[in-house]
């Protein structure tokens, strides 16, 4: 526990200290970025240490004489601390050169305060051992991330995004409060573990109440609509931290509550599985239709949360039907994907930030040809793209491979579960295929081809601290892909915690290690062949002339960069296929008349969840409230009368009992 406290103190101190130096911009950034990075490294070593010593640590205080505050570190906690500190440290490093506007000294200092608060709050969320501590940390996390989103508060969209995020995060928190309230009402204890004694029906109620809250934080499909607003608005290192790590706190909450409730019913697994499938497929479909790079990445977070939920859903199903192999592989794959997604999504958001730094725009169809001008950003972004598509030999494949293997274990299941498992396999395949489509769009349109605009043509590479952060993440991604056996330990240990009550033996663990070895074998064989083929290619090109010319235009003699395929045209046919769930709105003004004026085309993909929630939930409530407005009229005497009547009614109600 000691290194963790030391690290949290360092992180918080590095957040407060810059406030005193806000006039000296570089010093401020160096203090904050350096201190937070250092604190995170201490925390990372502490987390790994407490994972492998496997000795649960705890600490407790009483606050205001009645509310308990207690912390506890077990394997699940230690596992989730790893991405928090890893990505926290790298995004702090990245921010050093990313925040480059010298005129915003005070704002940057305040930004670092909330940044350090967010990291510390996330660490406290996973370490919390009782409901009070958990909710306190949860609120700190939500509020500080809200302030991080509004960094560019001059812009209306940013304020709007922060507002939506605030509404969602607080509404979600209310559902969590409700779930915890039910537990407290029944058991009379703030301790989460007391929830195990609830009746099955109440367990179900608690779980799904909390699922709404945690799911809205995680970005599960119908509850996700804050995510594509907030991520593009926030600075890129904040998006990296929020998307890579903070949304996983929702996953952590689901798992912690699942562990506390320890339910036997199959409904939990099935429910999670269905939400996972829906989020996974629709997330990537909506990502296809985005024209803003960071918005596109935000929708991919929804997709990846879907993949994680598929893994966890398989795990829970495995536990409830008594199939430990399926449970272990599902949980391990889901948790591994938590870590992998943190790595490659942070990398991709940092890459997007670097693109923004270099060109000043995030509109996909205004970019192009960046691979030549931003080599390192391009290469690392390529690594991240291959990883997020789940392709070998990078890390995304490892976790998906585990989840596939877990799902295939379900071959002997009865009908409903078998069908769900089968749907999970098919949807994973579809998600993979669509992700390839989406990221070839990003790589092909943004980084390859010819620059579509002058901004893209003038792009320049970013500064070293940003490149180092991306480079380290890309190396992590490759390392996990090539040698998963070295990295799978934490996920497997956390997964073992989750099925502690299911009888399972060491053969399952050794099966997992065999899978890791097989992945390495496959990756190495492929890479060896790749090198051989590359050498053959080199041999064939030796002493041969290779010319350089324009792209063949099929007889078209006056090409311009504007005739290139755009992201919108690339995605059009796939979106057409998914039209019922992803309606595209087009505005087209064609050339008309003898002297046609400018033609224009504009397309926008509407999020059906957002449309439904606004039109069928928010607006009716607003309408209802408008009719109740007469209650609030500004007359103080009447307000006091309300209070008196309310107190009297409550007293009477108390007497009645």
């Amino acid at each position, binding site marked *: 526990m000691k290194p963790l406290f030391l690290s949290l103190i360092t992180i918080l101190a590095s957040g407060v200290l810059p406030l005193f130096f806000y006039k000296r911009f570089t010093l401020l950034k160096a203090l904050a970025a350096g201190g937070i990075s250092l604190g995170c490294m201490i925390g990372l070593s502490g987390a790994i240490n407490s994972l492998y010593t496997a000795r649960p640590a705890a600490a407790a205080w009483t606050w205001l004489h009645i509310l308990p505050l207690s912390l506890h570190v077990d394997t699940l906690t230690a596992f989730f601390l790893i991405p928090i500190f890893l990505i926290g440290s790298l995004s702090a490093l990245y921010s050093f050169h990313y925040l480059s506007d010298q005129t915003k000294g005070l704002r940057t200092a305040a930004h670092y305060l909330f940044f350090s608060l967010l990291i510390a709050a996330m660490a406290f969320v996973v370490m919390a051992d009782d409901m009070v501590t958990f909710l306190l940390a949860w609120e700190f996390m939500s509020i500080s991330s809200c302030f991080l989103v509004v960094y560019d508060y001059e812009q209306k969209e940013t304020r709007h995004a922060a507002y939506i995020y605030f509404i969602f995060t607080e509404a979600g928190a209310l559902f969590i409060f409700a779930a915890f309230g039910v537990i407290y009402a029944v058991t009379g204890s703030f301790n989460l573990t007391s929830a195990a004694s609830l009746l099955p029906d109440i367990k179900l109620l608690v779980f799904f109440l909390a699922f709404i809250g945690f799911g809205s934080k995680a970005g599960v499909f119908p509850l996700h609509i804050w995510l594509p607003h907030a991520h593009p608005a926030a600075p890129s290192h904040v998006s990296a931290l929020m998307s890579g790590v903070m949304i996983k706190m929702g996953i952590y909450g689901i798992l912690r509550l699942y562990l506390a409730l320890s339910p036997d019913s199959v409904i939990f697994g099935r429910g999670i599985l269905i939400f996972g499938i829906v989020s996974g497929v629709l997330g990537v479909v909506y990502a296809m239709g985005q024209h803003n790079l960071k918005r596109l990445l935000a929708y991919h977070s929804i997709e990846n949360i879907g993949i994680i939920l598929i893994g966890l859903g398989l795990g829970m199903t495995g536990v409830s039907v008594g199939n430990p192999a399926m449970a272990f592989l599902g949980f391990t794959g889901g948790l591994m994907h938590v870590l992998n997604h943190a790595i490659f999504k942070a990398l991709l958001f940092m890459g997007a930030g670097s693109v923004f730094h270099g060109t000043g725009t995030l509109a996909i169809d205004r970019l*192009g*040809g960046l691979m*030549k001008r931003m080599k390192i950003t391009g290469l690392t972004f390529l690594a991240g793209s*291959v990883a997020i*598509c*789940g*392709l*070998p030999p990078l890390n995304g494949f490892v976790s998906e*491979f585990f989840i*596939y*293997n877990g799902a*295939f274990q379900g*071959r002997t299941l009865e009908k409903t579960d*078998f069908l769900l498992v*089968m749907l999970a*396999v*098919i949807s994973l*395949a*579809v998600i*993979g*295929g669509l992700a*390839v*489509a989406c990221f*070839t769009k990003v*790589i*092909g*349109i943004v980084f*390859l081809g010819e620059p579509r605009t002058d901004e893209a043509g003038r792009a320049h590479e970013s500064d070293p601290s940003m490149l180092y952060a991306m480079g380290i993440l890309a190396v992590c991604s490759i390392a996990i892909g090539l040698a998963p056996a070295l990295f799978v330990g934490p996920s497997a240990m956390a997964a073992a915690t989750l099925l502690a009550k299911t009888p399972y033996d060491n053969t399952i663990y050794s099966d997992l290690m*065999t*899978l890791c070895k*097989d*992945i390495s*074998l*496959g990756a190495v*064989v*492929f890479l060896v*062949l*790749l090198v*051989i*083929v*590359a050498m053959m*290619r080199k041999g*064939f*090109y030796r002493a*041969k002339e*290779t*010319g*350089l*010319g*324009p*792209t*063949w*235009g*099929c007889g078209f003699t006056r090409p311009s960069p504007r005739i290139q*395929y755009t992201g919108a*045209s690339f*995605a059009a*046919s*796939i979106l057409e*296929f998914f039209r019922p769930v992803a309606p595209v709105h087009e505005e087209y003004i064609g050339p008309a008349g003898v002297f046609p004026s400018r033609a224009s085309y504009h397309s926008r993909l509407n999020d059906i969840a957002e449309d439904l929630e606004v039109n069928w939930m928010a607006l009716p409530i607003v309408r209802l409230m408008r009719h109740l407005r007469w209650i609030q009229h500004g007359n103080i005497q009447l307000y006091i009368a309300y209070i008196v009547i309310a107190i009297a009614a409550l007293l009477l109600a108390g007497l009645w009992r």
Partner: protein
Amino acid sequence: MEGLVLLIIFLFLAPFFSTIIQKVKAFLVGKQGPPLFINYFTLAKLLAKGSVYSASTTFIFRLSPVISLAASMTALLFMPFAGAAPILSFQGDVILVFYLFGLARFFTICAALDTASPFEGMGAAREAYFAFLCEAAVFTVLVLFYRLTGSLSLTGYFTGPDVINLWRPEGALLLLVIAAMFMVLLAENSRVPVDDPATHLELTMIHEVMVLDHSGPDLAFIELGAFLKLFFYAAFIANLVLPSRPTVGFAGIASFFVAISVIYALVGVIESITARFKMGLVPKFILTSFALAFFATILVLELK
């Protein structure tokens, strides 16, 4: 050992099998057709040439042929031929194989977009679109096979005691699977009616338009990779059709050879008697294969 020998033989024979398609197509329209070794001549010619690269391209354009070929070669390492054990095998190798094809596709699409040509962009978009539908069909078949054999590797499917083939009690179901896999073969390997490998100037094509700007050894690698990929799918279906053989004898190899040839000839016949679909019909075609596989899997639920 025999697996290695067979692999090497078939690596060299893959371009020859593709000639069968051309021969059959020529025969059905009453022509003599190209010489039997036309594909080897083409490869040799391409390998002897130099290349002209588009000034728009980056290293990805040069990397993509290498990845395509390496991915196809890796896939064949896992495929059992004529009942012999393959070079490599592990639980889950089919997933690796199909994901490696996905990796190859990723880079092919990127290389196409790298040229900044609108035509290649068109092909790239279609490739990405149709591929995810094919993947759904393939993975449904894998679920079915796992239900039948409890194995997740090509070796487990096609060698050993619990081998899957048409001559087992559940063979009738496999007719659906064979039809589905054959449709996937046509779609994934850019054959008629999904795509037309014979012309280069149609705007309405997929794979060939993506490699328009490749030349010389790069193009040879792409072609060879495509031959090997087609051979992989043909071998997959051949393994399904042939009865199981306990040992690899001359008869086993000969029958495998014949089965592969028949599959290629069938591709040729289909290319001769059907026209290419309009692009809007292609998804329906591939979804039909998905539906067949899904139906087979639902039926197997009743079986065991």
